[in-house]
């Protein structure tokens, strides 16, 4: 049985369906990335996983416990790093950790040792007795992270934990995530930073409008997609475009230094054989030559997670 099991999770606010039948699972020692544009249902999903919102239907079990059955046990094995800071600015770092540790029933020497360990882990040992309000954004984020780890959870929910932090703190936090993963902790990681997700996550799910659009390992997701060839050409679209129908797309004209240019894009499926693309490329180059178009540059644009995300969720702005 997986550490986290989400089955057919649904949640509506009035007529608006926020989460529409999501199902996925996360194993121990795995980082599962959850991606989605604003309003995709990501935060609602995270809230339901954390038990802060109740689902209309479906189930969430973590380590065999659910919020309906074994709520307190579940809370003891669950750590949550919320998107917004959730620390007391008028308590010191140590007092924050102590308070939340005691809430989880940790006392005495064990609490003391764990606080020291977490402070070391998040790099705040030197600032342990400074008030939260004196911390930089990065230090606050690290403390926010540390509070979720004090009770040594088996599963951690990270909701955009690196928003607005400096590169050093971000790198430190990502190292912490990797460290947890190596200790066998299961993690779900929601972020808008694709490079973080690519760097950390074993598997990724992309959701939008409450529905799961795709999920799998990064290799699976990206191997199914394309690496496009872009040719920058001097010439008129009206002259080139009709001749390349079926071979490549010609994007709208741009004027650079008084010269008219177009981008000729040859879409290439990763599974295409190199012979197929070579044949097509030869044909395109021949046609361009005949049309009197001058090739200025040529580059391959790899289809990364961000491009996949935009292709699946669209380029329309989200509020």
């Amino acid at each position, binding site marked *: 049985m997986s550490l986290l099991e989400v089955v057919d999770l649904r949640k509506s606010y009035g007529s608006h369906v926020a989460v529409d039948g999501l199902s996925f699972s996360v194993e121990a020692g795995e980082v599962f990335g959850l991606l989605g544009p604003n309003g995709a249902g990501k935060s609602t999903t995270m809230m339901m996983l*954390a*038990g*802060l919102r109740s689902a209309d239907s479906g189930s969430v079990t973590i380590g065999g416990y659910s919020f309906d059955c074994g709520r*307190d046990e579940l*809370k*003891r094995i*669950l750590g*949550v790093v*919320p998107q*917004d*800071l*959730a*620390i*007391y*600015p*008028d*308590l010191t770092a140590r*007092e924050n950790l102590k*308070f*939340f540790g*005691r*809430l*989880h*029933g940790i006392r005495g020497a064990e609490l003391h040792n764990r606080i020291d360990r977490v402070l070391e882990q998040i790099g705040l040992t030197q600032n342990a007795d400074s008030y939260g309000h004196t911390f930089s954004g990065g230090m606050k984020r690290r403390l926010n992270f540390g*509070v979720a780890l004090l009770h040594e959870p088996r599963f951690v929910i990270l909701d955009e934990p690196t928003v607005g932090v400096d590169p050093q703190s971000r790198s430190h936090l990502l190292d912490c995530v990797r460290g947890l993963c190596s200790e066998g902790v299961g993690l779900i990681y929601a972020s808008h930073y694709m490079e973080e997700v690519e760097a950390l996550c074993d598997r990724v799910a992309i959701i939008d409008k409450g529905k799961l659009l795709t999920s799998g390992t990064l290799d699976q997701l990206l191997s199914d997609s394309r690496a496009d060839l872009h040719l920058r050409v001097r010439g008129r679209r009206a002259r080139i475009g009709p001749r390349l129908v079926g071979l490549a797309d010609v994007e709208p004209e741009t004027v650079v230094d008084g010269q008219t240019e177009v981008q000729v894009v040859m879409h290439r499926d990763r599974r295409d054989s190199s012979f197929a693309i070579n044949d097509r490329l030869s044909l395109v180059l021949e046609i361009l030559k005949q049309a009197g178009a001058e090739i200025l540059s040529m580059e391959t644009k790899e289809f990364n997670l961000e491009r996949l995300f935009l292709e699946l969720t669209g380029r329309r702005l989200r509020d």
Partner: protein
Amino acid sequence: MNALEITRKDLLLLFRDRRTLSVLVALPLAFIAIIGSSTGQLFSQAGAARKIKVGVVNAQQGELSDRIVQELEGISALELSNFEDRPAARTALAEDKIHVLLYIGPSYVARVDALEVFDLFHLQQGRLKHKLEYLDIAVESGSFLANASELVREVVFAKTYQTFADTVIKKDKGLALHIKRASDKSAPESEGESPEFPPDPTQSLSELSSGAKNFNSIVYQTVVPGYTVMFVFFIVTFMARSFIGERDLGTLNRLQLAPVSRPGILIGKTIPFLIISLVQTALLFLAGRVLFGMEWGAQPLLILPVMLCTSIAATSLGLMVASLVRTEAQVSAYGNFLVLTMAGISGCMMPRNWQPELMQQLGLVTPHSWALIAYDQILNRPEPEMAVVVKCCVILLAFALGFFSIGWWRSRELE
């Protein structure tokens, strides 16, 4: 157990928040001191500020008229000053330098000489029918005592009567001897020639005015509980702010993520304010006693259950308001409006006894009123009626239950 952790954390945060502490303790203390000062009841001012200033114009300047002045000087609540003539005294009265003008006219002795014993005992039929007017004495009250001018005239007449009564009685040798014998029988150890005369009609006033401590305390017996109750309920806004702060900081979610139940969170966050409220009340009552000479009544221990029940009602109201408001602005608007309106209706700002009957009845819809009724019973009655105190405590707890239930219901999102 976890609730106590929340309590401990909130107490720590409260003690670090000096502004809140000062508003909860220093501000009501300052209010009480200001009200006390305004009424002349603070520290050493007590004697001077309470006195009614009487300007005396003695146009007669004889032994008999001097006795009136001496009698009035014997009243500690009065401060006498002499004026050469009536116009000068009237100017002082107009400028509020004196509160009362006493004019003893040049015919005073002649008028007293004309009195018979009959006149002393038949005030409605004899020459004294017109009281001060007959005696050529005039009393004028300034704005300070404008509403009590008749009372002032009665006091002056009573005191004057006391000074001339023996002179008139001595005219009747038989009656004087009879009174002397009766006096010797009832008080054999008494000395001196003066016979006893009819009871001093101003005795009760004299007792009241000479009982400076009692009078002094009256203001604080009312002001301290009034403002204490008002400020105890100010805890409502601080509680609401604490809950909103917890929500805004995101730590309310963290509390819900920890193995703490909804009752645990609510109780944990309520207890610190209950403790603060009790400490606040105790400090204010202590300050009232030490600084202002306020008395705690015949059974001071009864204050404790009233304090507790009032604080429970206040913190429950705080929980209810915290569950209803969403922003700091709402706390400022609704919280302060609620607290000040309830204080105003209930008689915290102005003694309940001064309020018209309708307002007194209306005030009973607030817990404040019941707290004030209980405190009035304990602090101002020689024998506090236990049934009234118990009834007030029960009603305060009923208010608390109602407020808590609404707060509980509204905070169901915590589960």
